[in-house]
């Protein structure tokens, strides 16, 4: 009888206790660790070291191991989407033809894109300052469309790809008018 009463009390305690909570700051892919401020009632804990953790009911910040984090959060971390990425391609002057170097890069970029199940892509074309502003608007749009074509070829639905031509408005390397600058003749591919 007493045993049942104790069991009931324990069950009641377990049911009524506030949920236990854990917050852990992780080092990011580039090795940098950011900051999370945890406010729990009157208590405030600042987490800014790799694997620093705040647990409800514990006044001090603790350090977990990478293994402990993997054990509790492995499936969750695995479900994180791929980080949004920016790729760059460069063009031969006055054309929508890729430079030899960028042709090789394109293959690498395309195989990276094939890994993403439903990519959202924004393709933005640019020119250098050689030639008139209007011609450069056209040329930059043409470059963006050309790159879109490569993406459609590997099976990315055209509807998921937005294109724009920015002409010579957003120079990567600021130059005077009529300067042949290879790094400005580019297309940016933003993938999410």
């Amino acid at each position, binding site marked *: 009888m007493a045993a049942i009463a104790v069991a009931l009390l324990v069950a009641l305690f377990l049911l009524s206790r506030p949920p236990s909570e854990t917050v852990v700051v992780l080092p990011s892919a580039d090795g940098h660790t950011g900051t*999370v401020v945890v*406010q729990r009632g009157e208590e405030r804990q600042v*987490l800014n070291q790799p694997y620093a953790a705040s647990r409800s009911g514990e006044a001090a910040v603790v350090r977990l191991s990478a293994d402990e984090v993997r054990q509790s959060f492995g499936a*969750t971390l695995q479900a994180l989407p791929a980080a949004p990425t920016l790729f760059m391609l460069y063009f031969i002057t006055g054309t929508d033809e890729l430079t030899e170097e960028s042709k090789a890069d394109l293959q690498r970029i395309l195989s990276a894109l094939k890994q993403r199940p439903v990519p959202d892509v924004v393709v933005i074309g640019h020119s250098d300052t050689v030639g008139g502003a209007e011609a450069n608007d056209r040329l930059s749009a043409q470059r963006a469309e050309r790159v879109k074509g490569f993406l459609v070829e590997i099976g990315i639905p055209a509807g998921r790809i937005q294109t724009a031509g920015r002409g010579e408005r957003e120079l990567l390397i600021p130059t005077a008018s009529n300067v042949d600058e290879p790094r400005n003749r580019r297309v940016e591919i933003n993938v999410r």
Partner: protein
Amino acid sequence: MRWTIAAFLLGFALTCWADDAGQIKTASGTAFVERDGQRLPAQVGMPVRQSDTLITGADGAAGVTFTDNSLLSIGPNSVLAIDSYTFDSTTHRGQFDSSLRKGTLAVISGKLVKQSPDAMRVRTPSSIMGVRGTEFVVKVD
């Protein structure tokens, strides 16, 4: 007629996009999006909006990429509410509030936090977390 329908659908699609906070990029096992009292099976490519709640079963997990490039994922037996989300893609200002009711959450913060620390808050039943540009995980048992 066909063009009218096409134009209508395009307009509809663009309107939908404008309201989207993000998109489901990974989904496995039992995973739902609860919206306006309805449970929709979570599918890769599906939009996520303010006021949606993401729910997973014992075998479920799901990941979302938000328009500010924030990445969030939940593991098995989890409930995450997207309380509010605004993001201005020009100024990168806005506010992102979410609540983990139970389960596990992983976060990699995005442009909102880069622009203004404290633009992102995560609530649990007993805490509020302010995020200053980082990667972190949360568990509510």
